[in-house]
């Protein structure tokens, strides 16, 4: 019997063949923690009396959620992480460098690797063909300390997407559609394996949207077989040697297959307060909803391609006067490239506020907290009650194109109607 992609990767790290349902101890190649989960991970390691970590050069602490720190408590947490990292040799990606998942993909994640992270969107790394999954601080602390973790090998769901995406329809719309079909727990404990000609045709930035949001359907990971797109992405990052070919066997066994015809998709919006509450943008409940703030950024849609698209749709125009437009590049690399191309200039001229790389207002820490009763159209991955810092506010999730159309109109608008 052939192996799914996740069975192959976990098997290579467990030293034997494995199948879905088995519980194994596997070697871990890369670990990450961030400023919200790292301090607890460090305290757990200290409880074990650990002064050394297994492979410090493969562990990265990201100061990205509170970047830069808005409060003394968080400044103290940042210092605590920097000091522990300095003592143990762990790497630090400091304030302004960018969001963990973006920076990991640029610098460290490689096909076939196992990456565990104390952040639920660690699954973003699946786009590069890595088994990447989110865990809590304690599991990651043990991963950092021992260089291994225990895993239940997940069953896999094959998500087969064929056909060309229509104009102004993107990976974000596809993924919101998939989450709407599956529900927020439809792939609980399972691995999503994305394949088909639509996926092959997507660039790395778009692939990362799919893997990033796998967890919003409950999945443990969202994997894409490595190919020429992966190879050239790694080469662009100066990491051509990190490429390896990894994918499923042709006769692998799947729990089920989801077939999607990309040509029939429309721009989609996820309505408050759950991600699986998905409707097409032109639905009567969606289009025309007044929007107080548009936010373009995050590990889901804060990449160069997203900012370029936003700038292209806003060039020579102004955002609606009653709507704020906040843009946060996902990493310093993205920010620099967007600056050099004139994308940032275009956005500023269109009325945007641009903040330094990091999570920005995504998780309600700072940089764009909503007022009571306000509505935000965000390119992020979650719209739970209270997510952006105010439980009395409402969050709609959509693509950067829908964000651009909505920023222009001051209400949720169909991007296909913008020239």
């Amino acid at each position, binding site marked *: 019997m052939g192996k799914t992609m996740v069975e192959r990767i976990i098997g290579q790290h467990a030293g034997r063949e494995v199948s879905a349902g088995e*519980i194994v*101890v596997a070697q871990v190649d890369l670990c990450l923690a961030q400023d*919200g*989960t790292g*301090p*607890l991970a460090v305290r*757990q390691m200290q*409880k*074990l009396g650990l002064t050394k970590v297994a492979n410090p050069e493969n562990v990265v602490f990201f100061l990205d*959620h*509170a970047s830069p720190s808005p*409060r003394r*408590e*968080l400044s*103290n*947490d940042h210092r*605590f992480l920097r000091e522990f990292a300095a003592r143990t040799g762990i790497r630090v990606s400091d304030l302004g460098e960018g969001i963990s998942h973006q920076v990991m993909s640029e610098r460290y994640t490689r096909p076939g690797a196992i990456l565990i*992270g*104390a*952040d*639920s969107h*660690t699954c973003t790394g699946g786009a590069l063909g890595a088994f990447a999954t*989110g*865990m*809590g*601080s*304690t*599991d990651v*602390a*043990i991963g950092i*300390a*021992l260089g*291994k*973790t*225990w895993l*239940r090998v997940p069953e896999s769901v094959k998500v087969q997407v064929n056909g060309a995406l229509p104009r102004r329809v993107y990976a974000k719309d596809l993924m919101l559609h998939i989450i709407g079909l599956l529900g*927020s*727990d439809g792939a*609980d*404990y399972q691995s999503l394996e994305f394949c088909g000609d639509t996926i092959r045709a997507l660039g790395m930035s778009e692939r990362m949207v799919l893997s990033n949001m796998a967890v919003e359907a*409950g999945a*443990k990971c969202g994997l894409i077989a490595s190919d020429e797109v992966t190879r050239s992405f790694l080469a662009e990052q100066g990491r051509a040697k990190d490429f390896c070919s990894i994918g499923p066997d042709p006769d692998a066994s799947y729990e089920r297959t989801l077939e999607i015809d990309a040509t029939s998709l429309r721009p989609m919006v996820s309505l408050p307060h*759950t991600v699986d509450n998905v409707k097409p943008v032109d639905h009567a409940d969606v289009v025309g909803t007044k929007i107080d703030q548009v936010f373009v950024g995050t590990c889901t849609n804060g990449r160069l391609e997203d900012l370029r698209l936003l700038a292209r749709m806003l060039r020579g125009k102004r955002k609606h006067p009653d709507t704020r437009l906040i843009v946060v590049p996902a990493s310093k690399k993205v920010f620099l490239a967007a600056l050099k191309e004139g994308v940032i200039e275009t956005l500023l001229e269109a009325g945007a506020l641009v903040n330094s790389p990091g999570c920005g207002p995504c*998780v*309600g*820490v700072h940089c764009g*907290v909503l007022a009571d009763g306000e509505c935000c159209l965000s390119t992020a991955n*979650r719209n*739970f*009650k*209270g*997510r*952006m*810092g*105010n*439980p009395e506010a409402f969050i709609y999730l959509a693509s950067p194109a829908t964000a651009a159309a909505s920023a222009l109109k001051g209400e949720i608008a169909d991007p296909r109607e913008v020239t």
Partner: protein
Amino acid sequence: MIIKGKAWKFGDQISTDHIAPGRLFHLRSNLPELAKHVLEDARPEFAGQVKAGDFVVGGRNFGLGSSREHAPIIIKMAGVGAVLAQSFARIFFRNAINVGLPVVIVDTDSIEEGDELEVNLGAGKVINRTKGKTLTFPPLPAVMTRILDDGGLIAHVHKCGDIKLD
């Protein structure tokens, strides 16, 4: 282990943002303070009124969202005896075991607000004293029972010097 207490009923899809919201991000290194706000965005009165041994009773996909382990930790710190739900999000479930918070997958439909419950983890039973009804649930996977019995993952590794699953 038998735990007795009152049911606090919550709906489907209680996220970690309901349990430990991002606006209190700065309290994550001050868990006693964060625990005063546990589940605040789902039921504001909960944190002030919950008694030791009481149960959080959820619906489908309890604990979805972020990997923040602070969520199960502050539920435990509030004195909650166990969380009962129809299903749990993967990361929350694993975190709860790692920090020693009992989590029970059981059909919670018949449980109502304020019902007096008795949960027997070893026997896999929830006795609803108010309704005179007994519900059963499957035992945890062996690896999780091992970790929970050792007092959480840190205590397990401390004891065994490694992750020992057999």
